[in-house]
C-alpha cells in the first residue's frame, strides 16, 4: 500500500513541478528534441548508406579471364562448378567483349576498326553471392580460380572491395563516436538545465528531508520529470523527422533509381526506430535528471 501511495505522490509532485516551472522543463525538452532529431537523422543517414553499400556490394563482380586455348567443355565444367556454389556465371565470348568495348568507347572506337574478333580473351563474369563479398573470401576465390588450367587471370576489383569495407567501418565507428559525443553533450546540458529546476525547488527538497524523506524519495519525482521530458523531446524529434522525411524521400528514391542499385531505396525510417528514439529519449531524460538530482542532494 505504501508503494502505491508513494507512487501517487511522486507523479503528483512531478506534474506539479512541471506546472509551476514550465520554462526550465521546456528548455530541457527542446535540447532533448534537437539531440534526438540529430540522432534520428544520423540513424536514417546511416541506414541509407548501409543500403547504398549493400547495393554496391551486390554489384561486386569477379571476372575470370580464360586462356585462348581453353576448351569449351572445360569452360562449361568450370562454369557449372561455380553455379553449383551459388555464383551467377556469364560467358563473355571474344566477339561479345569486343562489341562491349566498341560500345563503351563510343566515338573513340574508330581506332578499333579492323581489329580481329578474337583479339580480346573470353571471360567468365561472376555475380558474387553474399557470403563471398569480403576481401578475404574474394582473395581465396581468386587464388582457387587462378589455379585452374583454363584461367589466365582473375580480377575481382580488390581495391573497390577494400574501399567499400573501409567506408563501412569508418561509418560505423564515426557514427558511434558521434553518438557518444551527442549523448554526452545532451546529458550534460539537460542535467544542467534540470539543476535549475531542482534549485528552484530547493525549499521543497529541504522540507522533505526535514520530515524524514530518503534520498530515493526526493529523487523519484525528478526522475519522473526527466522521463517525461525525454519522451516529449522524442515526440518532437519524431515530428521533425517526419517533416524532413517528406522532403528527402523523393530525392533518395531518385538517387537509388539513378544508380540502378538492386532492391531500390531502403525506407528512410523504419517503425522500430520510432521505439528506439522514444527509448533513447526516455533514457537521456532519466540520466540527465538522475545526475542533476544526485549533484543537488550531495550539495
Amino acid at each position, binding site marked *: 500500500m*505504501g508503494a*502505491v*501511495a*508513494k507512487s501517487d505522490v511522486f507523479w503528483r509532485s512531478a506534474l506539479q513541478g512541471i506546472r509551476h516551472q514550465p520554462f526550465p522543463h521546456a528548455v530541457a525538452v527542446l535540447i532533448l528534441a534537437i539531440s534526438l532529431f540529430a540522432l534520428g537523422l544520423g540513424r536514417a543517414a546511416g541506414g541509407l548508406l548501409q543500403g547504398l553499400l549493400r547495393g554496391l556490394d551486390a554489384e561486386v563482380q569477379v571476372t575470370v579471364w580464360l586462356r585462348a586455348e581453353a576448351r569449351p567443355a572445360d569452360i562449361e565444367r568450370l562454369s557449372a562448378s561455380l553455379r553449383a556454389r551459388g555464383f551467377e556465371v556469364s560467358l563473355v565470348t571474344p566477339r561479345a567483349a569486343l562489341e562491349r568495348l566498341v560500345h563503351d568507347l563510343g566515338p573513340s572506337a574508330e581506332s578499333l576498326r579492323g581489329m580481329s574478333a578474337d583479339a580480346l580473351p573470353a571471360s567468365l563474369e561472376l555475380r558474387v553471392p553474399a557470403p563471398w563479398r569480403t576481401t578475404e573470401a574474394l582473395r581465396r576465390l581468386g587464388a582457387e580460380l587462378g589455379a585452374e588450367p583454363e584461367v589466365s587471370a582473375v580480377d575481382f576489383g580488390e581495391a573497390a572491395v577494400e574501399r567499400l569495407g573501409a567506408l563501412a567501418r569508418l561509418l560505423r565507428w564515426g557514427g558511434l563516436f558521434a553518438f557518444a559525443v551527442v549523448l554526452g553533450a545532451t546529458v550534460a546540458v539537460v542535467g544542467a538545465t534540470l539543476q535549475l529546476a531542482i534549485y528552484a525547488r530547493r525549499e521543497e527538497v529541504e522540507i522533505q528531508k526535514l*520530515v*524524514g*524523506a*530518503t534520498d530515493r524519495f526526493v529523487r523519484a519525482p525528478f526522475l519522473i520529470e526527466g522521463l517525461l521530458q525525454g519522451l516529449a523531446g522524442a515526440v518532437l524529434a519524431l515530428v521533425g523527422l517526419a517533416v524532413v522525411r517528406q522532403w528527402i524521400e523523393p530525392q533518395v528514391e531518385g538517387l537509388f533509381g539513378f544508380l540502378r542499385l538492386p532492391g531500390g531505396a531502403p525506407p528512410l525510417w523504419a517503425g522500430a526506430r520510432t521505439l528506439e528514439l522514444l527509448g533513447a529519449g526516455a533514457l537521456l531524460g532519466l540520466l540527465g535528471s538522475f545526475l542533476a538530482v544526485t549533484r543537488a542532494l550531495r550539495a
Partner: protein
Amino acid sequence: MIQMFHVTKAYPGDPPVLTDVNLTVDKGEFVFLTGPSGAGKTTLLKLVFCAEQPTRGQILVGGRNVARIRDASIPYLRRNIGVVFQDFKLLPHRTVLDNVAFTLDVLGTPRAESRERVLRMLKLVGLQHKAESLPLKLSGGEQQRVVIARALVNDPTILLADEPTGNLDPALTVEILDLLCEVNVRGTTVVVATHDATLLERYQKRVIRLERGRVVGDTAQVQVTRRTG
C-alpha cells in the same frame, strides 16, 4: 529522551560553537533553551535532528547514538522528531492540507488516511476551516500553527522549535506557546529555543541557558540542588 555527553561543535577555522555540553532531557519534558544570539541554541537543536554532526562527544536521542549515525539512517530518525522553525518553511503553492500531509507522504500513507489524519491535526491546532487555503493567505500565527501541525501529524516523540515565535506579535506568541504546552501535555517532549525572556517568566518550565557555546545554567539542576540541599 535526549542526552548529550561532552558535546563540542566547531567549524574549521572558527572558534567552537558549542563546548563540552552535557545535558539530559527526559521523556515528556518541556524545556526552554535560551541564551543571547550566537550562544549555540540553533546548533544544539541541529545536532539533535542530525542536520549537523558533533566534532566531539556523544548524543543519544531515544536511546540511539546519533553522533555517529550513518547518512542513510538519518531520515528514519527524523520521522520521530518534529521540527518547527522561525521562518515557517511552508510551500506557498500548496494548500494547508497538502503542506501538513507532506510528512505523511514521506511515510507512504494512503491518501484517504492521510487526509483524515491531517484534518484531525488541523482541528487540534484550530485550523480545520483553513485546510484548502494557501499559506500566504494566513496570518503569521496561523502559518506557524500549520508548521506545528506538520511537525506533529506523524506523532513524533520529540518536538524541536527554533524561535517559533520570533516573527510573531505578543498575542500570537502566547497562542503558539499555549499550543506547544498542550502538545507537551499529550506526551511529546518539547524543546523550545528562544531568547524571549518574557516567555520564560510566563511559562514556568525548565530552562537551560547557553552562553558562548557552554551551558551556564539549568533550572532542573537548581531544583535538584534545592531538593537535596
